[in-house]
């Protein structure tokens, strides 16, 4: 079976949004949309599920504060409870105010960095990654919608022409 897709190219984000809505209303499955900048509301129009990155971040923050607490309790209270300038090192809670700045920073550090790494992994981004760009103009001033073709090529081409596309291409994908 051939692996044909349609590239419908637009030059305005408002027209793109309308086209996305029409395409979904006509029950054509949108494979992907490429835009040069974030288009507000595009994810909602495409019906994408909301991100769970914030939940990940919250969990990473909890790990960070746990790690900081464990580390300082072990070092300052359990392992070698020295008297440093009269600070009470009999239990963690007694000397806790002195540990709070570190606990805070560790929480932020873990939450921020692990979330960014999660984002890279989920988005499959890394330094020597091959760019997946169907048309170089989509990084500059054009918007591209990719829709799979299932033996309905003529119908799809005329449909996308009617949605205001400046260019409709049928491509064989490998």
């Amino acid at each position, binding site marked *: 079976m051939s692996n044909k897709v349609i590239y419908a190219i637009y030059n305005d984000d408002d027209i793109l949004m309308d086209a996305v809505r029409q395409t979904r209303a006509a029950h054509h499955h949108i494979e992907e949309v490429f835009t040069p900048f974030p288009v507000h509301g595009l994810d909602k129009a495409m019906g994408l599920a909301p991100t769970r990155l*914030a939940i990940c971040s*919250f969990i990473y923050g909890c790990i960070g504060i746990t790690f900081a607490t464990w580390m300082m309790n072990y070092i300052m209270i359990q392992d070698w409870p020295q008297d440093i300038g*009269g600070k*009470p090192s*009999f239990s963690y809670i*007694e*000397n806790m*105010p*002195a540990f*709070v700045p570190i606990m805070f920073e560790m929480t932020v550090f873990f939450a921020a960095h692990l979330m960014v790494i999660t984002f890279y992994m989920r988005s499959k981004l890394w330094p020597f990654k091959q760019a997946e760009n169907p048309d170089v103009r989509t990084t500059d001033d054009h918007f591209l919608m990719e829709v799979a073709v299932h033996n309905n090529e003529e119908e799809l081409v005329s449909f996308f022409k009617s949605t205001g596309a400046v260019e409709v291409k049928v491509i064989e994908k490998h």
Partner: protein
Amino acid sequence: MYTFSSKLKNLSIILMALGLLGIGYGFLTAPKDIQEVEMILAAEDHGGHGEAKNDVATGGAEAHDAVDSHNEVVPASGADMAPAAEVGHNEVESHSDVAEFHAVVAGHDVAKEAAEHEEHLTHVLHQLQNKPWAAFYVACLFFLLFPLGVLAFYAIQQVAQAGWSPVLFRVMQGITAFLPYASVIFFVFLILCGLHFNHLFIWLDPEVVAHDALIATKSGYLNFPFWIARAAFFLGGWNLYRYYSAKNCLSQDESNDDSFYKKNFNISAGFLVFFIVTESIMSWDWIMSIDPHWFSTLFGWYVLSSFFVSGITVIALVSLYLKSSGYLEHVNTSHIHDLAKFMFGFSIFWTYLWFSQFMLIWYANIPEEITYFITRIEMYNLPFFGAVVMNFVFPILILINTDFKRITWILVMAGVVILAGHYIDFFNMVMPGTVGDRWFIGVSEVASVLFFLGLFIYVVFTALAKSPLLPKRNPYIEESKHFHY
């Protein structure tokens, strides 16, 4: 136009009546002389160990030498000041009721003992007599300051030309309509303090100042005429801004150009400058001077953060109420979401300042500063740390969720906890210096809050019913109506 529902009106009147009754009860049951105090203390010998906490933890007789300064507490040693909180509760119980305290000083001659006993009784008498006054003062201060917080928030929205908030301007103006009423009550209260009806501000007592070199050196600033003149100036300035700003906003509705809007922009910018200066001095005058031996440089900001977040919470609660009764058609969940974000952010800002003040003083542990926190940790352990839980832990866990910020019942619950938490915050600031270990959240305290809550509801919703809830010709009103996040 909003109409004040009769149900709410009746509720506010009931609250005021209940509050007045409770306030009166508090004043009537306060002890009149040291004989009554002696009876109260004798009764406590059989019962609680409330007295014990103070005596032992602060090193016995030393506490009583400091009667003049009410709550001067001398730490026995610096190292045990943080754990002293637990010590105060656990180890003390075997020790030192009033009777045992006398056993300790039995070595002294009889005359000295009698004098010390009398001094102790006078000290407790002052604390007990202060209690209904202090309860009223905390509630009055809280209900004066959070409308001021709303006023500051409102001024910031004007100056920042915020596009989302103009649909809420009339709600904010309604809330700040309470400011003149609270100002008058508060000012009368300050005059009563100056006329020696109570002992809330010990530096107002010439006897105390004469025997206290520390306070005497501050009397160039802390003297009654200057103090009351400052209060009049601050309250006057805030109320003037409130009056003209609300007036211009209504005039803008009927106007053909934006001149009143521009006028409001200018006076709001001027007010914010005036506000930040007067707010800082206000916090020294009305709160920090209750402990005149103590000082902290970030205190003004700390007080600001406390009443600012309370003010935003009240805006959210009043908006939710009006919205749920079918007014405010243009206020959507995005507006509420924004208010909730402010509640969340400023709760954390409060915690940041609370902790910064506490940690700096705890870490350095300089005797003349640390007493402030020792009295609070030893005698106010639950309210002191409870305020952090209510104002930080609870809001950060509840309001961090984006979906929760749009759900009415969650916001109402979080708002009530935040408001109660900041009342306790003011309670913690005022009570240790006025009633010491004689604190209790009883009839006086609850009744004062109920009275002001009733008056607040009555005044605010009467004011809301007087003008349309949607400004007409504000340049940002269209954007605000369609605000969507």
